[in-house]
């Protein structure tokens, strides 16, 4: 019995490593298409609000006057401010930084690591002798919110070059591994149990988890990043949360965003 299990897991491990990102994506989407036959994949960008009519109604009434509006306005002002050397954020990004969020995260060949939007914002600042912003700060949240807002309606088309495969696989392993004293994996709740209940909340599907960031969580009373949510989730299952923009979270964001390829960006968003 044990031998058979060992052989099985070795075969499955081998199969998983042979699988490439496009096959992973196909299988991922197929899983959710089957689990939620009445919901379009793209609709999952609204998370739990795509799965519960009552929650959706409450959320839509908030969208009339969303709490992230203040952050977008603050972000627009910050984005327009010049650095001390006369340049600005527009000089660091393609298309002057407007409508570029869907191109992140990407694999930075030169650095040999995943580059997220927040990391790029701070790299831009440092390249122009400005102090970096704390990732959990309102300023970073505002800038990220504004840039996400300009990318609303765009689609994810994340690429994984051969050099980026290791980072993608590291993110993939993180996503499927159980962690914390509660021994839960990201997949356990958001793939296997998606649509089910966790205490009093409905578990949203992973397909759509990267589209709506940054997010104004009512719990945070401010706009926060996907990495902040990763750390929060990890702590909730008893695993020590990692720092924002740590390599492991960047790899996880890379994998997750790739799994959201083809989906429409709808950040910033409001969540409970």
């Amino acid at each position, binding site marked *: 019995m044990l031998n058979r299990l060992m052989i099985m897991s070795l075969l499955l*491990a081998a199969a998983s*490593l042979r699988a490439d990102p496009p096959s992973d994506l196909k299988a991922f989407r*197929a899983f959710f298409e089957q689990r939620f036959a009445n919901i379009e994949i793209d609709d999952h960008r609204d998370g739990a609000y795509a799965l519960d009519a009552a929650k959706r109604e409450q959320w839509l009434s908030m969208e009339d006057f969303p709490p992230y509006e203040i952050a977008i306005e603050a972000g627009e002002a910050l984005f327009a401010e010049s650095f001390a050397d006369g340049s600005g954020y527009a000089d660091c990004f393609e298309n002057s930084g407007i409508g570029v969020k869907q191109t992140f995260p990407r694999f930075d060949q030169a650095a040999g690591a995943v580059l997220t939007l927040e990391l790029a914002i701070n790299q831009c600042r440092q390249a122009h002798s400005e102090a970096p912003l704390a990732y959990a700060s309102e300023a970073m949240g505002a800038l990220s919110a504004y840039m996400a807002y300009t990318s609303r309606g765009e689609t994810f088309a994340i690429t994984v070059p051969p050099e980026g495969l290791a980072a993608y696989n590291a993110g993939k392993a993180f996503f499927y591994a159980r*962690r914390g*004293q509660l021994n*839960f994996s990201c997949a356990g709740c958001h793939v296997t149990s998606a649509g089910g209940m966790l205490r009093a909340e409905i578990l949203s599907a992973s397909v759509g988890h990267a589209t709506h960031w940054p997010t104004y969580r009512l719990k945070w009373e401010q706009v926060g990043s996907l990495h902040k949510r990763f750390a929060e989730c990890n702590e909730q299952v008893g*695993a020590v949360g990692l720092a924002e923009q740590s390599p*492991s979270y960047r790899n996880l964001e890379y994998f997750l965003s790739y799994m959201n390829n083809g989906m429409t960006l709808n950040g910033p968003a409001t969540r409970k």
Partner: protein
Amino acid sequence: MSWGRLRQLEGQALRALGGVGAWAGVLMVVGVLTLGLNASNSQGKAPSAEAVLAHAMSVHDAAMARDHAWVTTRRALARAQDLLDAGDESASLLAAQQALQSAQASLNQADVEAESWPARVPK
């Protein structure tokens, strides 16, 4: 504590927790038993709280390096340190032992998960 009793407890834990989180049950049972064994060993040459705390910290760091450190370890380490600073050697030793078990379980989880995660990928 006999092996028969160990298997009985393991079976109970697995049944109680079901498929999901079964490993947590196994780990917790193993942890509880390790504590029992530790207590009986300490009747001979008792390790110092400081030594156990240092050991627990290094195992916790090893788990951290693999992104598998636990919150319970962190809490127990803090508690053990506070008790040590307050001069309560025996209570600190107990907390340090709990921290060590938790750290060992978290490191074990890292090993187990490195092999078992591929099975959960949708085909």
